[in-house]
């Protein structure tokens, strides 16, 4: 075996460069892991994620509390993968709230992404129910409905496919088989077919069924007018509102399942702020920009 060549500065440089490149993300991951795993007793007490204004939380709770016993709720589940983490906790709290009021839930999706996330959420609900067959029987998977907005219009008169069976499917069919059979429509928005499509396509044809929505923050300006015009009975559309709502709902399952902790979020935001501040400062002092070495490399 030939003797190993001595390490020269040229060969040593890439290794240190790689280390410099990967060290910050690893350090950030460690920081976030520590922030998540830190016991509640060691976390700073004056962090607050929940909204102080409880108007929308109260509206949503009032709609859920006003449902008749053994109500049937259609969950139009069409979030997108990118923004679902923002509303996941709120959606789970709302599903818990509906379940604790005895509501039976039927899930339908009009987008492929929504269907994938609905399958995961239904799987979670059924797994959590475990051997409790009664809870599992309160969940119906209608599945993916093709045709986008045209499919939504058709669902007004017929939403349960013939292949879907069970007591809840029979109950919906006995009430007419369309969206009118439901006591409430909960719209989980985020994708292409969100609360706006529901209001336009379903609300205009079927005014009798109340609709409520959960949406990520970027949809709030679009959906707030529908709340004011009463086309949506309730809307939770920011992280703060969602956390406030989740805090109001009694926890039946594991609290970690839906709580969004404030500390890791604060840590991530401070890191982002610091990173951006350094970049802006370097740019304003001329150390970063189109004319610099880094700029030419970019």
């Amino acid at each position: 075996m030939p003797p190993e060549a001595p390490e020269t500065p040229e060969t040593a440089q890439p290794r240190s460069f790689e280390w410099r490149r990967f060290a910050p993300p690893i350090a950030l991951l460690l920081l976030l892991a520590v922030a998540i795993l830190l016991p509640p007793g060691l976390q700073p007490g004056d962090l607050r994620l929940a909204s102080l204004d409880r108007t929308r939380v109260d509206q949503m709770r009032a709609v859920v509390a006003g449902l008749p016993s053994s109500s049937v709720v259609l969950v139009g589940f069409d979030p997108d993968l990118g923004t679902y983490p923002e509303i996941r906790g709120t959606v789970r709290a709302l599903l818990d709230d509906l379940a604790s009021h005895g509501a039976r839930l039927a899930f339908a999706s009009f987008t492929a992404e929504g269907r994938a996330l609905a399958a995961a959420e239904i799987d979670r609900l059924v797994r959590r129910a475990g051997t409790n067959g009664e809870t599992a029987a309160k969940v119906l998977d209608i599945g993916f409905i093709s045709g986008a907005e045209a499919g939504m219009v058709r669902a007004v008169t017929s939403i349960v496919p013939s292949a879907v069976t069970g007591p809840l499917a029979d109950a919906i069919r006995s009430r007419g088989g369309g969206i009118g059979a439901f006591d409430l429509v909960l719209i989980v928005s985020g994708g292409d077919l969100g609360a706006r499509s529901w209001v336009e396509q379903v609300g205009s044809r079927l005014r009798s069924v109340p609709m409520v929505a959960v949406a990520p923050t970027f949809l709030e300006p679009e959906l707030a007018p529908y709340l004011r015009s009463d086309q949506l009975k309730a809307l939770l559309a920011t992280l703060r509102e969602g956390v406030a709502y989740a805090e109001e709902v009694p926890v039946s399952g594991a609290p970690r399942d839906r709580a969004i902790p404030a500390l890791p979020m604060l840590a991530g935001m401070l890191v982002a702020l610091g990173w951006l501040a350094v970049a802006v400062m370097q740019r304003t002092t001329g150390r970063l920009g189109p004319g610099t070495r880094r700029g030419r490399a970019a």
Partner: protein
Amino acid sequence: MRRSLSSVATVVAGLLILLDLLVVNSSLGAAAGALQELLILLAAAAAVGGSAALVTRHVRHLAGASPDRIGSIVLLAGMGVVLLAGLRPGSAGASDPVVLWLVASLLVPLATALFAMLFFFLLAAARHGMASQGREAVVMLAAAMVAVLLLLPIGGPPGDLLAAAADWVRSVPLAGVFRGLLIGVAILAAVTGTRILLGVERGSE
């Protein structure tokens, strides 16, 4: 005015759907329903066509000297596994437990992991933009900094102040700009729709 076949079809379909919304008539409802069914079938056909085109493209990648052969193999294998699970004898189709497991335990966690990396990508992209772009990047990132600052999850009087400022930004300037955009898009869509319904095509002006 010269009208193409597609324009005529669009006009007839649009007017039928509009009339069905305005007039309660069972025959009109049935005709509009049939049109909706046709649209659903067309959407399904487009989805199948898209999938077939994707398979063809990646098979061609594998046959040729594509640099991303592994990506093509993973994509085709993934499609094959889901199709096999859904179409095998005795399967319940899209609601089959195997399909649901593939989606809930494999696809969603993988996609979630991918999106979890957005934080790092965004920070890297911000710096990249700052290094290579003009003043617009600085303005955009300064605005992003203000947004992050306003959303800091802190309590007490400073937290109340930040939360109130964030609410004001969201419900006044941001909502104004956003709704202005939406109204502009809606007007444009209405104008385009009217032009199509009236058969006014660009070439006939």
